[in-house]
């Protein structure tokens, strides 16, 4: 009995040691690339630091300067507008396409491939493609508008349409969300539809009271991911417009990058990073909090 428990505790100790060893790379990574940098970043945000001379503690000055920085507000405004329009648009469009595809039409695999294809490519190559598409004189966008006898646009070269062009471009990437919806739709138990039919529900009622409630967790996931992603737009803005014209596409992270790596204002950039973190955290918590009102509960509600 006694020997057995000693054996057991030795086994447990061995297992604990092995567990730590297996998680070792991760633990080291968390320490080096997350915990330490987070604390350091917070400290740097309270300093004036140009990376060539040692950081100088200035308290809340960076945050105070942010409040008076019109470009900071501009970048925040641009990013918020982009987020508020493009996230719901992508959500609805992705969901709509997934719904259509779920109607047992032929060739669903081909459609799925085509709609998802743009989501496979990203980064600089795609940005360059869209610069060419948005070319006001010979680009595809205006070619299509002319073909439809619609007025052509200046797209990226006009401060009034530049941000809209980015939103338009983001719609090309709805395939990623669409596939997640499609998987969710195919996971809705068939018997729910059958019993709804027996109760005499029509297509709209089935959608409203079966499909939609069952899909709320997936919508929730795509919403949170969409919000987080939309606040971190960088590559497209850097490659396509470098924030122009007239700062009309000065996305938040682009401005942050400029402060850090063009002007070497590391303290100021760190303060911006913390503000970004606060915004993303607040928005996520807000969605999370609201989720109790619309995720899952929808299914419980009668009528």
């Amino acid at each position, binding site marked *: 009995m006694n020997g057995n428990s000693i054996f057991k505790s030795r086994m447990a100790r061995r*297992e*604990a*040691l092995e*567990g*730590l060893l*297996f*998680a070792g*790379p*991760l633990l080291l*990574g*968390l320490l080096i*690339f*997350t915990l*330490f*940098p*987070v604390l*350091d*970043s917070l400290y*740097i945000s309270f300093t004036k630091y140009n990376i060539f001379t040692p950081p100088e503690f200035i308290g809340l000055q960076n945050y105070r300067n942010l409040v008076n920085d019109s470009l900071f507000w501009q970048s925040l405004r641009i990013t918020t507008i982009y987020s508020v329009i493009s996230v719901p648009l992508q959500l609805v469009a992705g969901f709509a396409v997934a719904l259509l595809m779920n109607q047992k*039409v*032929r060739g669903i695999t081909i*459609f*799925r491939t*085509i*709609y*998802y294809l743009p989501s*496979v*490519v990203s*980064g*600089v190559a795609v940005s*360059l*493609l869209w610069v*060419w598409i948005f*070319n006001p*004189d*010979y680009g595809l966008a205006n*070619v*299509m508008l*002319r073909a439809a006898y619609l007025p052509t646009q200046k797209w990226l070269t006009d401060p009034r349409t530049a941000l809209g062009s980015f939103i338009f471009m983001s719609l090309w990437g709805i*395939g990623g969300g669409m*596939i*997640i919806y499609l*998987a969710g739709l195919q996971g809705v138990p068939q018997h729910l539809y059958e019993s709804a039919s027996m109760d005499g529900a029509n297509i709209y009622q089935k959608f409203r009271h079966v499909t939609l409630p069952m899909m709320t967790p*997936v919508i929730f*996931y795509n919403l949170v991911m969409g919000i*987080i992603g939309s*606040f*971190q737009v960088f*590559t497209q803005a*850097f*490659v396509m417009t470098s924030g122009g014209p007239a700062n009309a596409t000065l996305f938040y992270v682009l401005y942050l*990058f400029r402060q*850090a790596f063009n002007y070497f204002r*590391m303290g100021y950039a760190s303060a*911006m*990073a*913390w503000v*970004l*973190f606060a915004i993303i955290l607040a928005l*996520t918590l807000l969605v999370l909090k609201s989720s109790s009102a619309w995720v899952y509960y929808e299914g419980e509600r009668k009528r």
Partner: protein
Amino acid sequence: MTHTRRVRIELTIKFIIYLILCAGSIIFLLPFLWMVSTSLKPASQVMVYPPKWIPHPLMWINYVKGWTTLPFTLYLENTCIITFSVIAGTLFTASLAAYSFSRLRWPGRDIVFVITLATLMLPSQVTMIPVFLMFRDVGWLDTFKPLTVGAWLGGGAVNIFLIRQFMMTIPVELEEAARLDGCSTLGIYWRIVMPQLKTCLAVVAIFTFLATWNDFMGPLIYLTTPDKYTLALGLQFFQGHYGVTMHYLMAVSLIVMAPCLLLFFLAQKLFVTGIALVGIKG
């Protein structure tokens, strides 16, 4: 009577859905076709209205000329080295951590797991500057190390989470039997668990490939010598290069995109299961 009417209505609805999906498909494919068309044009036909969709003659030479304007072969090599290292590191250390989380008991395990997941909420911009300064202090700026070392230290919370979720669905009987036969923990991980994770690891590898291949901000921050550029960085540099026009730019962009598209066509099923896995379990 009513039955045939209902069938007819259903057929009409299906036809309309089909029409919408087809129209959408054309719109979604058009940018790609536009790209291919431009990349094959002689210089004189690029800036022309109305555009000629099928250029004559087809200038396949654009691909060679564009590619050799800058040392893109070198950039390809650099990108391959970085991508390969990141994938290997991610698969190895993320699966090790996932194994530890799902199979081994150790003090603080659940807290560490929660912290790992919490890092998903942290925008990379917060840690970007201190990490940059750290790499500067150890003299790793303008090397590939800052771009790869993170993958060898955990490989990212999403991947760990995904592999752990997958591991939870594997029955432990086989591992217990191996344990009774005197197999070590490392042996169980490597010879029993890893082979059962093939699908999951393939999914992780694919998405890691796409993210690393297309990464722009990382190389932009860390690589300064043109010899060390990745394809993404090279392309951006190419854009501002003197005398480079759209047909070359599109040709090289297509070459850079090609591996991603090819991978998608070859492993489409994995993509779909993978995305569904991430989406639903996340």
